[in-house]
């Protein structure tokens, strides 16, 4: 045994970590400076008191179980801010810029044994994790924003092609596994090249934005629309048969042709041609469905545009 350094207690008070000790009856035995500063209790006021009586906000049963397991197993226990933000409601150093109610904490519950290796006390340490918590949460927000941005088409704010394809693949796989059906609509702006050439790309962009907006007004919340290419749009409709898909396609066509698009003094009528198809028992193939809808779209164009045609074998 090394000789006892005379200032151990002073050192415990120097730590930038909360340290306190309770016995089996949750009577407080030690309370360091950090705890004094952050709680409303001075050492002299809390030593000998019951911990729960001092901190009524504490989830009592949970804390009892935690301490109980340390006594029984003679093994440390832990909490992390990521699952349980704090043990005690302490203020923190980011009171102005932090946007958090309380200090986020990592806690350690360690057994203190006597000579016979019997646990007599539990020492709880509380580490201030507020800064790390704030930056981790900012990082998570940034990742979520990146994910959102990478799935969206900047012009129309619809899903972009790669995200839409991923969602459609998942839907087709879901049907393969669990059954059900899905319909698919592909549509294309009529005479878009001419609109662009005669009125400029800015006018063309406005047409695409306007069409995307009109689609959103018609579609149901489960329908998933994406911008597939320049002026080409795709929609898959979960749990929708081909007759229902025909109705949706026709509703879209009407909605888009109903009003002209105006931009900076120019007003032009717009319309779309659409092809649609639906899955059936022996057709759950992503590529095949796209191909079928494409063929139907081509037929709609050939038949004079501003119309919807369903795929037939």
């Amino acid at each position, binding site marked *: 045994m090394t000789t006892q350094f005379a200032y151990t207690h002073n050192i415990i008070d120097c730590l930038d970590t909360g340290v306190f000790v309770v016995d089996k009856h949750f009577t407080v035995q030690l309370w360091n400076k950090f705890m004094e500063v952050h709680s409303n209790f001075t050492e002299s006021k809390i030593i000998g008191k019951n911990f729960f009586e001092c901190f009524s906000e504490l*989830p009592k*049963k*949970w804390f009892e*179980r935690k301490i*109980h*397991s340390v006594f*029984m*197993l*003679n*093994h*440390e*226990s*832990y*909490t*992390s801010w*990521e*699952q*349980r933000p704090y043990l005690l409601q302490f203020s923190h150093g980011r009171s102005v810029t932090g946007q958090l109610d309380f200090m986020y904490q*990592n806690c*350690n519950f360690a057994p203190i044994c006597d000579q016979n290796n019997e646990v007599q006390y539990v020492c709880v340490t509380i580490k201030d994790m507020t800064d790390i918590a704030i930056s981790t949460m900012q990082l998570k927000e940034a990742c979520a924003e990146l994910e959102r941005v990478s799935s969206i088409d900047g012009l129309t704010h619809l899903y972009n092609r790669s995200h839409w394809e991923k969602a459609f693949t998942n839907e087709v796989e879901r049907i393969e596994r669990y059954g059900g059906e899905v319909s698919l609509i592909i549509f294309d702006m009529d005479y878009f090249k001419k609109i662009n050439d005669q009125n400029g790309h800015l006018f063309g962009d406005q047409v695409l934005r306007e069409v995307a907006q009109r689609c959103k007004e018609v579609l149901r919340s489960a329908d998933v629309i994406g911008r597939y290419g320049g002026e080409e749009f795709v929609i898959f409709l979960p749990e929708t048969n081909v007759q229902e898909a025909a109705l949706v396609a026709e509703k879209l066509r009407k909605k888009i042709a109903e009003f002209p698009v105006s931009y900076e003094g120019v007003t032009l009528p717009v319309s779309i041609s659409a092809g649609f198809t639906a899955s059936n028992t022996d057709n759950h193939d992503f590529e095949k469905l796209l191909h079928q809808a494409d063929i139907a779209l081509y037929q709609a164009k050939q038949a004079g545009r501003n119309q919807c045609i369903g795929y037939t074998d």
Partner: protein
Amino acid sequence: MSESLDFNEDQRDYLQEICNIGMGQAGESLSMLFEQYVTLSVPAIEIINAHELTPVLRRLIPAETISVVSQGFYTHITNPKFCGESLTVFSDTSFDNLAQLLEFDEEMTPEFEQEILLEISNIINGACLSGIAEQLSERFFNTPPSIIGQSIAVDNLLGNHKIKWAHALSIKIEYKVEKYSFQCDLLLLLPDNSIKYLQSILNKLLDEF
């Protein structure tokens, strides 16, 4: 495979014996803590080659998706440094059952589910490691538990990280609490240097025996 890592028959028997006794103690203290009968399997010990890790893990953990909690353990001052990692593997998790086992009665949230995984792993680890440590006349220290994957495939357990060891000793123990149809596996893994240290302790104990 370097020869020094092979266990001879005496070492292997003795290690098996130590693990069996350790697990017996662990089972007892867990049963007391949970106030439920906890069944532990006989520890299965083997040496894993790093390059066969994935197929071995697939064999040891025959489940489609798993949640895994890792916890490091090490001894005080030894040469070479003795350290290892234990993985608690949950393959079919009913959080309501686990919460009952812990007598936690808070509202179920994703964070609370994680806390339950961490808590159960830490308890199982504590019981198990102190059982083995006592038999080895050692004391283990732990790092806090951390979740390394939730509902992931076994193949994704190690991600794309480069493995820094050549061989590892694996001790697998299965846990069961019948009443709550709770089951999980504990894998204690010791990399190269720690195997050598373990062998030196075993030799010392065998000499005394």
